[in-house]
Every structure is written in C-alpha cells, then in structure tokens.
C-alpha cells in the first residue's frame, strides 16, 4: 500500500531518548521520573548505544531529522553520555543537514555549567523547564530553582545554544488573568523564538492529584477563568510574534520544534529508554513499541535480552486514524485530508460536518483543522469525532 507509507515521509523520522532521573519529583509531574542517589552513567551510555544500533537495523537508511533527550531531567546527564548517544545515532542513520538535537534542562546554576559540554557534544537546542518567574509559585510547584536562577540559566542557554525554548506553567493556584499577563510579558521579553505554555493539569497519581482529591489545592481556576487565561495567552503571544502553532507551543515562523512536529504530524520515531514509546511504519504497517517504566528493568532487558522493548504491536487502522486526528488537530496547520482518507476518514464526514457547523473545525485547501474556538475545546471535538 504505497499511499500509506507516505505518512512517515510527511512527519519525518526522529529519535527520542528518555533519561528517567530527577533530583526531586515535582508534585504536578506524572512523567516517568525517579529519584536515586547514584547513577552509573557509563552503563546508561552503553545501553543507549546498544539500543540505537538495534533500532537502526530495522530502519536502515532513514534520514534522521531530530534527536530529543527528554526526562526526567536530562540536564543531570554527564555530557559524555550525551556525546556518546549522539555519535551512535549519527553512525546509525544518515542525518539531515539541519538535524535538530534538543535536550531538556532544568535552570539551576549547576546544570547551566554543563550547557557548554552539551553544545560541544552536538546539542543545538535546549528546552528549559522554567515553569514560573515568581518565586512563590516556584515553591508551590515544588521547583528547586529560583526565578533569578531561571533568568540566569536562560541567559547562559541563549549564549551557548543556537536555539532556546523554555516552559512555563500557568493557570496556577490563585493566579489572576492580570498577574499572568504581566508574568507572560516578562517571559516574552526573555524568549528567543520558542515558548511552551502549559495550563497546570492535576493528574492522578501525583502529589497534586492526591492533594486535590483530599480537598486541598484551592484557588485553581474554574473552566471560565481557565478559558480567559488561555485567550490572554493566545493574544499576548501573537502580538509578540510567537503565535501558537500547537495547543501549548508558540514559535516564530520556522522556529517550531521539528522533533515534536514528528509526533503531531504522525511521523516515525524510535523511542529508547525506560517508558519510551515509539511508532514506526514498516512495510505499510504502523507499529507501536513500548519499554518497561522501571530504569533497572529496562537496563537489564537491554543488557540481557538485547532489546529494551517490552511491547511491540500493530496499531489498527482505526486507531491509527484516531492517533493522527488526536495529534494532528493540535496543530494550527491541522492535517492533510489526503493522508487520512486511506484510513477510512470518510466515515467521519457527518461528524466533521456537524463540528464545522458549530464553528469548531474547518476545511481549507484540503486540510482539516481546528478553528480558534475549536482548539481550546479539542478534547470535546475529539470525543465527538472518535467516540
């Protein structure tokens, strides 16, 4: 089915590496992260190398457009480990000329000292987990850095790396629209060309989740205030020349995260490290891979069984279509209708029409996308489309 193999070409091919360790677990975070006293970094570098070599065997000849070191806190990695992983990837696949290599970093002074080492290893983009520019809120979010450290870290990053992004969390406890506008204006003044702005989400299985369930965590915005905060964010970023290209991501034209675009455009990526997911299109079939969450278990699998994968299954056409819509409709550009038609998108015609009538979806130039009012209610749009 040659028309199906076009998908990965549309999205490109990338490599995700997961570093599962943090200095402390943040109370809102439900990512796969662990706090340990001692890490054998050499052993991790060996494992990454072995997994890259294994993955390359079934994706030989693919052009690597991006690498992404995510976590956890990858800025706790020794630059040597990063260097060895990048070298292994470059040896495994032909790299695009403009390959993007991103590393997530925390903005403490200790970590900022390692920035030059990462740059020397080949990292050309850093994504800094700032979260807030207010010390009170940083404490409430359980962050270990101060606003001053954060500003300094961003300054160092902009000095060292060609591309810099940072994250903020908003819709925090007791945050008014006015407070946020001010903080966001400061952030936009510091920003290079990319910003990730996430509304605080209370997830089950986190410290915040437990606190909220117990009736704590007062002053979180209700839906209407969350919507006001969202609208203020869209307006401020657009005015500063960093319009949103995805639900929570804002960039100057051309400065979008190429790696994350692979996810949202339904491309292929190899997922390496504990809890990493991957998607590969092999012989026209969509394959999902998963690895064990526990760091020790993943290492043992790599070392003893020769593969870190704990699951490999084919994604059904129905689920493939669902994933393309779920991910693609997050983007302002939406999805190419020509790419989803072979997966049975025609069956959704009636529902799409209904959502168009409500002004939440639109079809323009062969693409399906959310409107300005549709994007903040995307979950409801997806429920209508897919359930």
């Amino acid at each position, binding site marked *: 089915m040659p028309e199906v193999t076009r998908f990965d070409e549309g999205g490109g091919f990338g490599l995700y590496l997961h570093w599962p360790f943090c200095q402390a677990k943040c109370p809102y975070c439900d990512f796969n992260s662990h706090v340990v006293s001692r890490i054998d970094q050499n052993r991790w570098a060996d494992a990454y190398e072995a997994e890259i070599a294994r993955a390359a065997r079934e994706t030989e000849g693919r052009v690597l457009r991006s690498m992404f070191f995510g976590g956890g806190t990858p800025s706790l990695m020794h630059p040597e480990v990063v260097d060895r992983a990048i070298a292994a990837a470059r040896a495994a696949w032909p790299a695009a000329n403009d390959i993007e290599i991103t590393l997530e970093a925390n903005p403490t002074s200790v970590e900022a000292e390692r920035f030059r080492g990462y740059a020397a290893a080949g990292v050309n983009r850093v994504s800094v987990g700032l979260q807030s520019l207010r010390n009170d809120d940083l404490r409430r979010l359980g962050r270990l850095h101060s606003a001053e450290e954060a500003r300094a870290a961003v300054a160092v990053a902009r000095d060292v790396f060609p591309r810099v992004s940072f994250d903020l969390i908003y819709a925090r406890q007791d945050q008014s629209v006015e407070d946020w506008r001010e903080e966001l204006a400061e952030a936009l003044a510091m920003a290079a060309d990319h910003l990730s702005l996430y509304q605080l989400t209370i997830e089950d299985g986190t410290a915040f989740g437990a606190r909220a369930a117990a009736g704590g965590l007062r002053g979180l915005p209700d*839906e209407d205030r969350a919507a006001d905060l969202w609208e203020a964010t869209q307006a401020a970023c657009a005015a500063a020349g960093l319009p949103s290209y995805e639900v929570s991501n804002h960039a100057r034209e051309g400065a979008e995260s190429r790696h994350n675009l692979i996810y949202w455009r339904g491309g292929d990526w190899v997922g390496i490290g504990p809890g990493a997911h991957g998607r590969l299109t092999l012989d026209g079939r969509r394959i999902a891979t998963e690895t064990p969450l526990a760091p020790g278990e993943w290492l043992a699998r790599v070392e003893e069984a020769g593969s870190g994968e704990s699951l490999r299954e084919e994604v059904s056409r129905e689920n493939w279509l669902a994933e393309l819509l779920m991910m693609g409709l997050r983007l302002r550009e939406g999805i190419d209708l020509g790419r989803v038609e072979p997966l049975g998108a025609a069956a959704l015609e009636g529902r799409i029409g209904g959502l168009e009538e409500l002004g939440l979806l639109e079809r323009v130039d062969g693409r399906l996308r959310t409107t300005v009012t549709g994007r903040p209610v995307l979950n409801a749009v997806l429920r209508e489309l897919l359930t």
Partner: protein
Amino acid sequence: MTDLSRIRNFSIVAHIDHGKSTLADRLIQLTGTVAERDMKAQLLDAMDIERERGITIKANSVRIDYPAQDGQTYVLNLIDTPGHVDFAYEVSRSMRAVEGSLLVVDATQGVEAQTLANVYQAIDAGHEIVPVLNKIDLPAAEPARIREQIEDVIGIEAHDAIEISAKTGLGIPDVLEAIVQRLPAPKGDRDAPLKAMLVDSWYDSYLGVVVLIRVMDGVIRKGDTIRMMKTQATYKLDTLAVLKPAMTQIDELGPGEIGVFTASIKQVRDTRVGDTITHEKKQTATALPGFKPSVPVVFCGLFPVDANDFEDLRDAIEKLALNDASFTYEMETSAALGFGFRCGFLGLLHLEVVRDRLEREYDIDLITTAPSVVYRLHLKSGEVKELHNPADMPDLTLVSHIEEPRIKATIMVPDDYLGDVLKLCQDRRGIQADLTYAGTRPLVVYDLPLNEVVFDFYDRLKSVTKGYASFDYQLTGYREDNLVKMQILVNDEPVDALSMMVHRDRAEMRGRAMVEKLKDLIPRHMFKIPIQAAIGGKVIARETLSALRKDVTAKCYGGDATRKRKLLDKQKAGKKKMRQFGKVEIPQEAFISALKMDG
C-alpha cells in the same frame, strides 16, 4: 381447642422506637415460648428491612401459653400489626381480629402523632386498652406527666398504666397478668357455620401462600374445603397451624382462636385482607363488615440504572408482588431512563420499603422518578380518568378540570418549632383544621394536598423541627384545584422523566429550582443549551448552560498518544451511560440527582 374464657387476643400500639418489638420479644421470652438459644431481637419482624428500620410491614402473630396467677393456663394471641399509616387498612383488619390493645408509650417521649392514629383505630375496633409506660428505667422518664398526657390527649384512663422497661424486663410479669385480668375474652359460637377473618397472608417459598386467620364462629379443621366470600374461590386446607412463632400443626381452631393455614394457594394476590372465610358447603349467612380492596395512592417509575438489568428487575418485581398484593406495576418506557416499571404503592413508606428490597435483596441499582399521586381528570367529554403518570396527561384542551387527593395531616411538635411547622404547612397549600395542645405540646391538624406531601414534606418537616415532630396522615378525598403539568425542556426537547403535575401557584418556584439544578448537573456541551420549565407552550423558568470554553489536554507528545487513545476508548464506553436528548447528552447521574430533589 381452647375454651373461650381462657383466650386473650391483643395487639400492641406504639410509635416507632417506643419499644413495641422489644416488649413482644420479652413476652415471648418470659413465657418460654421460644427456647433461649433461638431468641433474637425483634423476633416477629421477619424481614431484614423490618428489623433494621424498626417497622412492621406484614401482620404477624404469636401464640403464647401463659400460666396465670389464678392457676389457669391461658392462650395469649398477639397480633403484631404494621404501625404505619400507609398500611392503615391492614391495621384496621388486624385490630378487628383482637379484643384488646397494649398502648405502649415511651415514658421519656410521650404520645406521638402515629400513636394517636393507631390508638384511635383500636378504640374504633372497640378494644379494651391497657396503657404501658416503657423505658421507665431511664433518668428522663416522667411517668406522672405522661399519664396525664395520655388522659388529656387520648382520653382514656391511665392511672393504672403499667410501668415497665422492656429492655431490662422490669414489669413484664405485670403486663402478662393485666392481659389476662383486664382484657376481655373473645366471644363466638362454636356451633354456628364457620366465619373467619383473613387477617393477612404471605408467600413462603416452601409452603406457598400462608394465610393468617381469626376464627369468629364455628370450627375450621385440617382437610376442610373453605370458600373465600369476596373472591368466591374455594380451597382444600393442606395444613392448619398456630405460630409459636414457629409453625406448629394443630387439628382445629375454634371461636376466638388465631392461626394459619396453607391450601395450595399460588399467590398472595388470590387472598384479600379482610375477606371472610367460610366452609364451602355450610356457609355463613353474612360476611364480616368493612372489607375494602387495597388501592395504591402513590405512583413512581422504577428504572434499572443499568439497562441490562431490566429483565432482572422484572423478575424481582414479580417475586415481590407474590408477597405484596397492595403493590401494582406495569411496564413503562422513558426516553430518559429506558425501560422500567410504573409502580403503585399504599404510601411513601411502602414505596421506600419496596425500593429498598429490590435494591438489597435482588441487588439491582434503581432510579426512582418523582413520586406522583393519582389525579382525577374530568374531561370535557364528561369522562373521568385517573392519571398515574404526568407523561400520560392528555391535551389540555380536552380537560375540563383536575381533582387531586387531599389528606388530613396530624402533626405533633414541640412549641419552639410550631411557627416553622405552620409556615411549612401553609407553604404547601395547607388549610389549618385544628390547633390544640396535648399537655404542653401543640397538636396541629392540617388539610393538605397529598402531592405536596410526597414532594419533600417529610424531609422539610424533619429539618425545620430538628427531628422532633411526629407526623401522620389519612386520605380524606378529592378536591378540584388549579393543577397543571410542568415540562422540562433541555435544548427545546422535553425530558419525560422530569415532567410533573404541580399547582399553578407553585409552578414557578418548582420550575426555577429544577432548571437551576439541571444547569449544574448537565455538563457543558460544545454549544449553549437552554434549559426551560414550561406549562403548555409557556416558559415559566429558564436558564442557559454556556457552551464549553476550555477542555484540551495541555501536553501531548510521542509517549502520550497511546494513553490518550485509551482514554477516548474509555469515554466511548462511558457514553453508553449517557442519555441522548436531541443533540444533548445527559449523564444518567444528572437524572438521579435531579430526581433526588423531588424524592
């Protein structure tokens, strides 16, 4: 067969919690009727729900052999009656089957409204009444004041009231002696044709229907062929027994005696409480007076929460109906709630008891729609129709006028809360009929529409009086009033399960309360939704549920695709629990909560 002079038949009249069942237990225990090891609390209340809620639904009976101080052994038959107004007719029949009553009053609480209603039934039945003051061992007991109250309020002699503690057993021998000394022996003619009253009946899975009878005249024997005079059905007796309280076979029952028989009767519905039983061949000339068929007065829909439970619900209802002839049911379909049953009950307590049994004994989660009374529709054609379900209301242009059932409500309340109670009754379209004092306690009598009482009257009364009021009622008749059907429209679609009959003057308030509640219960949709209460085409209350403004996952990267997709699959399953009204999906939970306000 016992000599008439050595039989005493009695019942116990008491308010809930005043110690009726405990006293019965002590009488049974002290006379050795039940071996000590078989004793358990509230022996006569067979069902869990009866035991837990301290109420009696079915009449029951126990035969006690008591060697009295005069050296003779007497047969004492206690008939334990349902104490609640819902079962007033059943109570009246039980009362007719005995000659005397023990009036048990909590010496710390005094006479309550329910005591009054039941004691008047006993007086109507011509009973000799022996007052008994219970809980005399408690420091708060005020026997002198309560004696005075009994004399003032009920108007019976109370100076020789017996002071007891059913809990400790204090005074129980005095009660037994008083039953023998103060209650009259039954009368009857052994040689006359058989005349017995059908007091109650119940279904036993081994024996079939068991019929409780009191023989007035003649003798009934095992193997006899009998005739039920109302239904004209004839049966051959399989077994004849007395209850001690275990069934103990006996060859014959003569005048004044109380016992049970089985006769291969299939369902309780074939037996009518109050019917007269005679011999097929040698019939009595006149039936006992006062027979009334039981008529449901409160109706509601019962729907399974899970539509897959419908068949189980049908089975359960059929089984329950085997043992409860006063409860009626027919299938009902609701766009909101799916398939269920429209059920009729003798009153609110009866409704609750049946619903609890269905949920507990048959393990079915139920949605109960707002209880409705039976309205009488006078159509312009001259036809009169009974309306059990607001959904069946015909076009208004066909209706001349509507009548609703009224009740006489008797409320006893401490003075401090009198004002609140009067206001509540007034708000519920009540007309004051009487306000007197039972000693220092006000006794309020109101003429009220039954539909205002089934709404949430009990709950409101309890809350405005902090639980200190006692309440009882009896149906008095029908009266015309300005009644209308109020519909609830969600996004301009009527929601059948929420429509109700209301008085025109109360419609705005009820409609406003309902639309406000629904606005909180229905989740926001992708479009705004008007929620309206309307009478005919006229909107009387309106709220608008705003469109959804914000519902999007903040972070969604490569590792989140699987999780997010599984979440959508879960939502797909959850959608089955939603009810669709036009474009609006209403979670079943919302109906349950909206109906709770009315329940």
